């Protein structure tokens, strides 16, 4: 595998890609299979899911029984290494001391980035989601339509493998027949939610997740993905063959040693490396995109973290896919801090996260259920897509955009924490306590709002005038603010979930006197930040065009969530990959015409 040190790098590459996650992985995949020579810079260390994933490890084998700590925020066995809400030596700052004006920035410094631990929820944006301003006058339209992105959603779904069903619901697109893998059976709490949700008009149904519920059709899919390119077909078929379907154990958040779920490190990077057209330099912390006097990108200046020295690589085109915050930081730090691709002044502007709030309830009908295996596909099986488009169109709701519901409540593996809220046992101990624990385990359900945030002027990031990271590179400073749309949406979700739990005879576990400002999750907390280099129809009001190309630097592409002009309730990763594939195709086309 050509994972190299800077000393082994070639003199020049066709394309340099910053970041190895969903966007960088997809670019590397598409470009290298078209014969383009790429180098990828990853700020973290190399990582091998096959040998490093703690499959089947139990809490009793981990420090603190696997409980989360500031070193491993989401638990000892979470796949994220060298990452979290804070990364040692790489500070970020807040412009305001007020909690509601602060941004939580999750980073993962590792090969594959956040794709190693993500929830694998893979939802398509719908037609409305690309033209939100045209519908309700708020935010921005994208310069692309659903019809243009649709074929790329299909390609990505075929490549990574996504389970789910077609719902036929408004603005919740179906995939072509035969593309989705079979949805896993619903768990008990999911079926109960579905039954009671129906009475309230909440449509619980199979979610879409990037987990193989059966082997991928490696005989036929590669032909559809790479028509006329038999070499690419063979490489992709070989890679698909090596992926095993889910064996229905182990949380996906740990990563997957059998490659049953999508992570860049098991799905995008292996075929890209197999082409021989990709070199990956880990521990390469990008500082600047280098540009020449004509304003064209010529390469990347980075710190080799193993030596602390500055290094340069040359390329005919540069792709940044470092995640919104880091991408903004690289753009603004380029040209020695003067910034590039910023004639609009919009680099760093319109950062969006997902609106999050959660309601947890104790549901007595789920007490004392006979033990049975509910591990399933290592994550969610069921969700409710947004069902309120008609009400919004009729002006019945006090918020403009939708949310979907993600739910928890299975009899999942107890690890690190008390599996039952202590107050339920009413002071018991001894034999009675053990009976109580068995009684209440599995009787807790939770519903999470995942809603669309409308871009606003208050939510952005910029270079901090003073603070630098340990290599002397200026850090980011964050600004944040919600509008009434998000707060009202969170309030609607809270009421809806409370009604649902109470309709089951359950009791919610929150203080009903709280206001939306208290229970909306802080900005960044859902780890869906997008924007900061939004795409648009002209260079004055956007940073990128509809091909993820920056207006100012034509051979610079941004292929993570930064170009998103809106942040639909649909989780961003699938859209990042679809846009990246399309951008790569466009770049290949331009290269053929000699336009690079």
């Amino acid at each position, binding site marked *: 595998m050509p994972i190299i040190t800077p000393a082994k790098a070639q003199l020049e590459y066709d394309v340099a890609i910053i970041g190895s996650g969903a966007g960088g992985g997809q670019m590397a995949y598409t470009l290298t299979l078209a014969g383009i020579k790429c180098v990828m810079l990853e700020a973290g*260390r190399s990582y091998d899911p096959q040998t490093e*994933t*703690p499959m089947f*490890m*139990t*809490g*009793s*084998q981990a*420090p*603190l*029984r*696997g*409980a989360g700590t*500031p*070193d*491993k925020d*989401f638990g000892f066995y979470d796949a994220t290494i060298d990452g979290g809400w804070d990364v*040692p030596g790489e500070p970020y700052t807040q412009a305001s001391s007020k909690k509601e004006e602060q941004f939580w920035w999750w980073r993962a410094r590792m090969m594959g980035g956040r794709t190693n631990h993500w*929830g694998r929820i893979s939802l398509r944006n719908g037609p409305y989601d690309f033209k939100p301003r045209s519908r309700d006058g708020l935010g921005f339209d994208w310069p692309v339509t659903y019809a243009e992105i649709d074929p790329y959603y299909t390609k990505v779904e075929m490549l990574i493998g996504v389970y789910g069903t077609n719902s036929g619901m408004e603005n919740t697109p179906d995939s072509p027949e035969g593309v989705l893998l079979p*949805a*896993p*059976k*619903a768990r*008990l709490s999911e*079926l*109960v939610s579905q*039954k009671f949700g129906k009475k309230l008009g909440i449509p619980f149904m*199979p979610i879409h997740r990037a987990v193989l519920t059966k082997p991928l059709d490696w005989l036929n899919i590669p032909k559809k993905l790479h028509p006329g390119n038999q070499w690419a077909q063979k490489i992709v078929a070989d890679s698909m063959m090596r992926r095993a379907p*889910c*064996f229905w*154990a*182990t949380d996906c958040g740990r990563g997957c040693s059998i490659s049953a779920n999508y992570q860049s490190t098991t799905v995008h990077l292996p075929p890209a490396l197999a082409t021989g057209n990709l070199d990956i330099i880990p521990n390469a912390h990008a500082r600047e995109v280098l540009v020449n006097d004509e304003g064209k990108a010529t390469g990347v200046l980075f710190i080799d973290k193993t030596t602390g020295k500055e290094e340069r690589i040359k390329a005919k085109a540069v792709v940044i896919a470092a995640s919104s915050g880091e991408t903004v930081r690289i753009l603004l730090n380029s040209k020695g801090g003067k910034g590039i691709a910023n004639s609009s002044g919009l680099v760093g502007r319109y950062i969006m996260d997902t609106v999050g709030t*959660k309601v947890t309830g104790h549901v007595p009908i789920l007490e004392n*259920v*006979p*033990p*049975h*295996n*509910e*591990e399933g596909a290592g994550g969610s099986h069921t969700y409710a897509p947004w069902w309120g488009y008609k009400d919004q169109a009729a002006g019945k709701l006090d918020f403009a955009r939708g949310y979907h519901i993600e739910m928890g409540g299975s*009899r999942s593996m*107890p690890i*690190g924490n*008390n*599996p*039952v809220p*202590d107050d339920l046992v009413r*002071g*018991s*101990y*001894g*034999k009675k*306590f*053990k009976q109580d*624990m*068995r009684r209440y*385990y*599995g009787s*807790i359900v939770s519903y*999470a709002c995942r809603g669309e945030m409308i871009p606003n002027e208050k939510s952005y990031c910029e270079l901090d005038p003073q603070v630098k990271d340990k290599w002397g590179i200026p850090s980011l400073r964050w600004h944040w603010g919600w509008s009434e749309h998000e707060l009202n949406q969170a309030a609607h979700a809270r009421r809806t979930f409370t009604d649902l739990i109470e309709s089951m005879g359950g009791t919610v576990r929150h203080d009903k006197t709280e206001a939306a400002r208290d229970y909306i999750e802080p900005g960044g907390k859902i780890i869906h930040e997008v924007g900061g280099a939004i795409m648009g129809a002209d260079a004055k009001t956007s940073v990128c065009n509809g091909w993820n190309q920056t207006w100012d630097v034509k051979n610079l592409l941004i292929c993570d969530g930064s170009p998103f002009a809106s942040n639909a309730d649909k989780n961003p990763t699938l859209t990042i990959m679809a846009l990246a594939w399309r951008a790569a195709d466009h770049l290949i086309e331009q290269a053929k015409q000699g336009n690079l």
Partner: protein
Amino acid sequence: MTSPSDFTPLFSRRQVIQMFAAVSASFGITPQANAATVGVADTFAKGYGTDPTLTKLYKPGDVWPLTLNAEQLRTVTALCDLILPADDLGPAASAVGVPQFMDEWISAPYPLQQEDNPVLLEGIAWLNTEASKRFSKSFAELDAPQQATIADDICHITMAKPEFREAAQFFERFRSRAAAGYYSTQEGWKAIGFVGNITSATFDGPPAEVLKLLDVEQTVK
């Protein structure tokens, strides 16, 4: 991404540092004032860092030194087994390493655990003082009914008399941590009714008897 636990909040390092500062202040802990208590930023043992090996087996004491002396460990063991005794659902807490886990927990160089440290150590000392007052013995030396007379006074935080309120806070926290330790083991899984961590060719969803019990049907065919 959803946080992995509904019951334990996740804190940012910033929050945690603030929280810890508050806790230190409230307990008046400084290295000089209480050398036996690990608990101030300067004296932090090293944690496992941001890139620990995830696939090896760890046991308490492997990553940071433990705290409890023999007498304290006896008290912790007695209380663990009083809360989680051997019965038809499974072994006692001490048979699956819960006392050692409790020691590891209060010794850990992380803010949540540092916050627990004085609460649990002071609670353990209180138990022995109370046992001595009532029965002239240490808590571990008491027989089960004697232990119960103390436990009954402090086991329910909302029912505890004012003079036992602080001890009840300790008991609640101890019970919750001991449950975390116990139910994270395979024996604990059996006791609580968790089934899983085994490969399977198919996922069949809840069995028919369970569906019937809740009056639902499997809707994914």
